[in-house]
């Protein structure tokens, strides 16, 4: 079985332009285009959060779909499960808006849809080959890769930097 891909964050590349947030909200809108999305009620929600850490850190935060997902086990209504691709899914129909998942998620990436009284979170864009946040990112700060490929690339990058350093 092929290893599933995950969304990785390369923080040094993030400029906090928040394009990913817009793309995510549009993808989760009814019209799936920006002009339609901004006039929808309730306003479509982003599942990725670009945060800021003093003095100049930019940190996109997105659901990790944890291997031992606390939200899934904590859910008191059986609304959260993992699909065959490893994606942790919240079933809105089963969600009762008790917010237990919000209470246990250590990443703070589960949102509350106040109008619908439902929890929402990253669903890795089931209708897309590549999640909307990743394809929209202009600086490739978000990467959609398998764990093996991503860590292999990271090792090559570090090795390249070390070699370049030796040449000085």
């Amino acid at each position, binding site marked *: 079985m092929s290893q599933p891909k995950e969304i990785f964050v390369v923080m040094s590349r993030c400029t906090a332009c928040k394009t990913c947030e817009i793309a995510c909200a549009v993808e989760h809108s009814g019209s799936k285009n920006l002009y339609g999305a901004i006039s929808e009620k309730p306003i479509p929600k982003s599942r990725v959060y670009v945060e800021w850490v003093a003095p100049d850190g930019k*940190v996109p935060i997105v659901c990790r779909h944890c291997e031992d997902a606390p939200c899934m086990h904590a859910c*008191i209504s*059986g*609304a959260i499960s993992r699909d065959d691709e490893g994606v942790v899914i919240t079933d809105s129909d089963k969600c009762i808006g008790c917010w237990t998942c919000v*209470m246990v998620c*250590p990443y*703070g990436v589960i949102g509350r849809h106040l109008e619908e009284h439902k929890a929402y979170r990253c669903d890795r864009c089931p209708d897309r080959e590549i999640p909307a946040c990743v394809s929209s990112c202009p600086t490739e700060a978000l990467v959609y890769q398998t764990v093996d490929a991503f860590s292999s690339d990271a090792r090559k990058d570090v090795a390249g930097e070390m070699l370049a350093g030796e040449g000085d």
Partner: protein
Amino acid sequence: MAEDKARYVITGGSAAGMAAAQAITEQDLNGIITVLSEEPDMPYFRPLIPYMVTGKKSAGDMQMSGNGPYKGSGIDIHVNSRVDSVNVSERTVSINGQGNISYDKLLLATGSRPYLPPEIKGADANGVFALRTLADAKAMAERVSVTDHAVMIGGGLLNLKAAFALLERGVKVTLVVYSPEVLSQLMEPDDALLIRNALDRAGLKIKTGCSATGILSDKSGVTGVSLDDGSEMPCQMICIGKGVRPNVDFLSGSEIIIDQGIVVNRYTACNTPGTYAAGDVAVTFDPVTGERIMTGLWTNAVEMGRCAGYNMTGRKTAYSGTFGIMNATQIADEPFVSMGIVHTKNTDYEVHVRNTGSTYRKVVFSPDNDRLLGVLFIGDITGAGMYRYVIRENMPINEIKSLIINQRLHYGHFIRN
């Protein structure tokens, strides 16, 4: 070969028992897993039973098997099967006073039952409930048709949820609370104003500082309740929510150590070989206070049950305990989260309170102001899980203190600092 297969027996088919069973199926592909439940219904999500009263969900909608992380396959579930004794030297349990079954590993996950205060006389009348099981909820739903007014005795979360279910059905509801305010286990009276306002808006009548002394009934069932202030209220339904007690009676005479609940070590194991306990029935500990506690929370029971399941298969897994106080929910239109130490009256904790009129936030630090001990968020519970993480991991909070006080913490602060 059959004799190579481990026999896992689980007494109790709710959160802890089913979470353990699921964890075992993931670890031991050959194990024989038997879950024994005394209830007539197949395992269900107990917190959903108020929806049986409102009619918004059917019993089928609440089933555990096939929902959430519960696959349901590879687990042999027996309902109407009450374990009445355990023989730890023979490694057998007796069911319904009839046959015995043998185990290699046994999980005691018999949960808890509602506490019915003996001073409330007449509680055996028709129409008196303590909403605990799906069967209770079905009976309560049926009683609604003859109920004009219901009185809830006890102001905890369970009774509030039952009260809202009844309000939704058009029943008039009065809550009788002995404490000066509702939800006294999860917050202090001064903290509860937003919740109280939400309850008032929802049409719930509340009588505080008052307790029930007797239940009046005739052949139709409940007709009223008498209170300790000398008054009487006519009603056709009563719901008692005065806490729970662990189901340990069946262990009397066994060698298993009981101290209110079943005593276990960090690996969820009892003092006798091959025996484990988890959920409401088990005595665990609070990592903040270090105190031994028992909790009645679904989420805790699942976590401990999974841990026990792993330990039963030989995958040694320490249980990290849980806060004595931990709950999230929404009462009427107010969401709230309460966890850790939130009762601060007459203590020397450093307490920060911020009240905006629509949100309320109370943050509790240790007296040396070095550790976060508890938070209460009402109205805005954004990112609550991160605060739980800070409390539970006993993190030094120097650099993130103002972020905690202002509820501005996000995960980036943990990785960029």
